[in-house]
């Protein structure tokens, strides 16, 4: 019996060329990376031997006397994330309409899209640095950084939702003589509100994580404690902080997942 495999699909010249170009650029990227990076292993390992006993066991024996302070700053972190993400959720709504293809047309929606991706290119921490310089080292700088940073992401997600709405309802209302405001309130909004809420709550989840590090640049929240604990080599306090972050993030993740499941 003659067993033969089915013939392999023929690749076009373009596809072959593309594969070769991609492979070469990936190899070049790795050569560049390994030539460029020079790690001082000896120093790092010496430091590790010296620090290991100071850090690792202490992380796992949290200093419970700091619980009160950790709870208070964690509360501030939650406030920063809440105020910031709510501001962002409100700001993102008009921007998302401006960036949606089916609301503004393909070309008019371009500036909105660019603005949103420009905002997203700034890491939260850089925004926080700018706002700390502007309004001083306090929690409000954190709120502003979170608000602006989240607007980019929320605006993009919102505009994608708007682009996916069911056009039939809109056309049906227009055919019956509804004006633009009526179409907006009775055809567009009911379709998008649940998903908007769901994403806003999801962003709150993300912002809890983001706002817990803003204190590193002086923008309030638990990050301030992280900086002090590491500067003082107080790793048991760092353990308490970690427990605080893990507990709060987990609880909020679960609650938010539960609420989002009910909304959508």
């Amino acid at each position, binding site marked *: 019996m003659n067993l033969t495999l089915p013939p392999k699909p023929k690749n076009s010249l373009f596809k072959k060329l593309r594969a070769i170009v991609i492979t070469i650029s990936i190899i070049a*990227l*790795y050569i*560049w*990376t390994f030539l*460029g*990076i020079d*790690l*001082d292993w000896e*120093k*790092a390992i010496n*430091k*590790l031997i010296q*620090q*290991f006993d100071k*850090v*690792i066991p202490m*992380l796992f024996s949290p200093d419970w006397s700091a619980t009160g302070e950790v709870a208070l700053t964690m509360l*501030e972190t939650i*406030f*920063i994330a*809440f*105020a910031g993400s*709510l501001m962002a959720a409100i700001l993102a709504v008009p921007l998302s309409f401006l960036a949606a293809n089916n609301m503004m047309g393909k070309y008019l929606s371009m500036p909105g899209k660019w603005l949103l*991706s*420009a905002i997203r*290119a*700034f*890491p939260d*921490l*850089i925004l926080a*640095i*700018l*706002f700390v*310089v*502007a*309004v*001083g080292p*306090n*929690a*409000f700088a*954190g*709120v502003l950084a979170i608000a602006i940073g989240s607007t980019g992401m929320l605006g993009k997600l919102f505009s994608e939702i708007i682009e996916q709405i069911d056009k039939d309802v809109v056309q049906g209302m227009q055919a019956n003589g509804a004006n633009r405001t009526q179409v907006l309130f009775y055809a567009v909004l009911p379709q998008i509100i649940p998903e908007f809420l769901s994403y806003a709550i999801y962003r709150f989840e993300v912002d809890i*994580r983001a706002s*817990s*590090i803003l204190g*590193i*640049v002086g923008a*309030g929240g638990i*990050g301030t404690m*992280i*900086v002090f604990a*590491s500067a003082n080599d107080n*790793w048991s306090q*760092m353990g308490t*902080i*970690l427990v605080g*972050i*893990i507990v709060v*993030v*987990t609880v909020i993740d679960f609650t938010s997942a539960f609420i989002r499941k009910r909304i959508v």
Partner: protein
Amino acid sequence: MSKSNTKKPLKIKQPPDIYPTKTKAQVTIIFFAIVAMYLYSMNWTQRDMVGDITDAPANMVSVLGKFFPPNYSYWSNIWDEMALTIQMAVIATTIAAIITVPLALLSARNITTFKPLYYATRTFLNLLRTIPDLVLAVIFVGLFGIGLLPGILALIVFSLGILAKLISETIETVDMSPLEAMRASGGGTIQVIWTGLVPQVLPQFTSLVLYVFEINVRASVVLGYVGAGGIGQVLQSQLRYGHIAFPNAMAIIVLIFIVVLVIEYISSKLREALI
């Protein structure tokens, strides 16, 4: 039959509302709770602000003015640091992508049929994802001293959590019939995974790795702020000099902005081509 002959006034019945009263009450209460919490948060976060909130915009304009114009000639001093930042992200993403394979398999419900193992891996990954990247960097800087190594390690651990979760979710959505057919005709676990699973998830795997690379580039530019190497370290030292160095700092921020945008653009084009 009824005694009352009194005429009832003609009532126009309102059409019943789409939403029941209970839902309306709930929504109203939630709305006011959110507004109250918002006002309280704003009040709390502004409590130790010097001066009035109304001063803030003017303040912001005057301080941000000192950042402009950015000192672009400073770019020639920071190319190396920027390159190191990207290289950090490349190495971290590569190592994370390798380690993530067994973790993703172990936390996929359809591959790991042994429940306790599945739940253990899942819980571990969930725990890993709750720790912010900068906190990991702070801990690794404490362990290894200032340098690139703690930054790379922080990125690896951080991206491992995200990547393993995303990939395990992809694995859970694959078509199981080819895998079952192979198992029925006597394929071993490794054979089944290699020939049945890998071809199905490879495009998504590559796409997700690229996505995590984007996240890592963004994260690596700020890791330096806590001493974990890269461009963030330069930014921090420039900001510490005060007003004189602000144009330099702005040049760094603009460079970060451009690099992040370019990398995101390339990566999103590649991902579009993949899927």
